[in-house]
């Protein structure tokens, strides 16, 4: 088994270790680092449950080899936090608005929402819908999720919470 050294930043901390060539980023995060917030849904890039930020952009960690993150920066749902280290405003809004049912898709959706609102703080409902086209939720019917992302956008703008 071919192993290589992976040196990257995960949620602000430096990680350096040998990994198997065939390890996916999703396996690396969940099994090697114990970061279980990132979920495996379909394993084929269809559902978005495994989204992480790679150098600030949302990517499907199930379709990426861990080795490809060498020298790069990863943020998982565990690394999305408020300024005080507690819940991020998007996470708070999702809870308050009842946008979470079974919760399995939510880490991926919050990662996608965070990626969008960082890039486009004044995102419209249409922008939000387009950004979430790669995220499946089988419980909510999406209305509450879309509403919560809109409210998060307003909260973040109002309070400059970044």
């Amino acid at each position, binding site marked *: 088994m*071919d192993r290589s050294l992976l040196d990257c930043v995960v949620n602000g901390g430096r990680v350096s270790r040998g990994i198997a*060539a065939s390890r996916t980023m999703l396996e690396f995060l969940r099994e090697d680092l114990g970061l279980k917030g990132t979920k495996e849904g379909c394993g084929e890039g269809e559902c978005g449950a495994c989204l992480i930020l790679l150098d600030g952009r949302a990517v499907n960690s199930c379709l990426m080899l861990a080795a490809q993150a060498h020298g790069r920066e990863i943020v998982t749902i565990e690394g999305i936090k408020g300024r005080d280290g507690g819940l991020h405003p998007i996470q708070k809004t999702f809870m308050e608005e009842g946008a979470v049912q079974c919760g399995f898709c939510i880490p991926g959706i919050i990662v996608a929402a965070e990626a969008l609102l960082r890039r486009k703080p004044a995102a419209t409902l249409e922008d939000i819908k387009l950004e979430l086209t790669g995220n499946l939720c089988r419980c909510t019917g999406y209305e509450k999720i879309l509403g919560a992302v809109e409210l998060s956008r307003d909260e973040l703008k109002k309070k400059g919470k970044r």
Partner: protein
Amino acid sequence: MRPELLVRPSSLAHLWKTLPSLPRDRRYLAGGTDLMIAASHGHAGDCWVDISGLKELRSFRETPSSLFIGSGLTISALAEMPAVKKWLPALALAAPHYASPSLRNMATIGGNAANGSPCADGVCALCSEKASIVLLLKGVKRKLPLPAFFLGPKRTALRKDELILGFEVPKWRHVSAYEKLGPRSYFGISKVSVCVSAEISGGVVKETVISCASVAPVPLMARKAAEFLYGRRLDEGTISEAAALAESEASPITDTRSEAGYRKAMVRVLAARALAKIAAA
């Protein structure tokens, strides 16, 4: 099965030096969004050569008469470039219909071609913009018109170890329309797509290129339809005749995504819609 051997060359020079020592059944890994799925469904080579880190494949150059797009650029990166919006309107229009935002952040335009699928959105757009593909093997470059790169479903002109350096697209003053029919409005693989790029001068068609996805073994160029439109005005009659010609050029199959008869009929509908949009632009 994902292979147990992964090689990550640091430059093209390093790549060509490393290749002879590797197992014969090797594949290039770029964005990985197709290759990783192929690996989960079966054998996908004994060794992967990861070219996603090669800066030499991510260049973007603009000259007075053309653009050069590095094969390693992601669909997202391209969609955000002002030069793409200005000179490659078909690619800019196709981008939001290309998979999902997170897949566009990984998937490369070179991979879209290398995968050899007749349904590729990025390829369909670039074909209508008169792109050529530039291939590289150990310092030897060759250039093909993009449609000639595709030999059949999943079969391309790539030789052993050859890679896609990028795409050369001439600057021409065209407007484009991209009509895609999928299982839903976004994030679906196309049942049929039709892309039209056209230069209209003095009210008549000076040049038009029509490409279609998912309706032939390779990305299809509707040449008869395009030739018919040369020198004509785009009106209801000419649009309807050109759309019928495009339909006659398609040879779709029935598969899990759609049926041959429906696909063929939809080529006419989508071509007419695209041409009407061009006429109104």
